[in-house]
């Protein structure tokens, strides 16, 4: 079955050529990927990242931005590898969200 991501040749409208500055969180995602995939650690491979991006449901794949797909795939790869657990990640995400609420 043709994967949703494998869209070469399908109608897609014009190419969006505008550039934008990367937000700080996007730079952090990029740094995270480089650090995790460094040969000294090799906690993920870019091929695993791609597999997990391709595994996104079509509506999520279309809705998410480039780095949102990345961070989703990084999280899934680390869960599959056993580097982190879902419970750890969930608790940390809740703690960070709560921290944000307290900010002035």
């Amino acid at each position, binding site marked *: *079955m*043709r*994967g949703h991501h*494998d869209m*070469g*040749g399908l109608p897609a409208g014009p190419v969006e050529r505008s550039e934008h500055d990367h937000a700080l969180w996007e730079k952090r995602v990029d740094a995270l990927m480089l650090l995790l995939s460094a040969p000294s650690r090799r906690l993920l*491979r870019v*091929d*695993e990242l*791609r*597999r997990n991006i*391709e595994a996104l449901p079509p509506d999520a794949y279309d809705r998410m931005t480039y780095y949102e797909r990345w961070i989703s795939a990084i999280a899934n790869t680390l869960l599959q*590898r056993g580097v982190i657990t879902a419970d750890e990640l969930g608790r940390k995400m809740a703690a960070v969200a709560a921290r944000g609420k307290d900010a002035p």
Partner: protein
Amino acid sequence: MSETATLAPRFAPGARVSVRRADPPGHLRTPWYIRGHVGVIERLCGAFANPEELAYNRPGVPKQPLYRVRFRQREVWPDYRGSAEDKIEVEIYQHWLEPA
């Protein structure tokens, strides 16, 4: 298996090849639109660990030869309106190619 083990190239530049019309599950680097089409080997790009295996955190050895394969646009896209001489080049791993 050693990380440097490499499969011998099966195809020389100029050879006619067809892309396997395969559809296994997994992480595949052969675009859907090119499967089943016939092209010509433009060059051998080198040999690389198989990304279909790397995607599952396996070593991907022996390394697979990777080729740049040249196709006629009109053969790939039946409604292509450009020149009959226009080509498209796609990089394809050896295990996706058969002699044509």
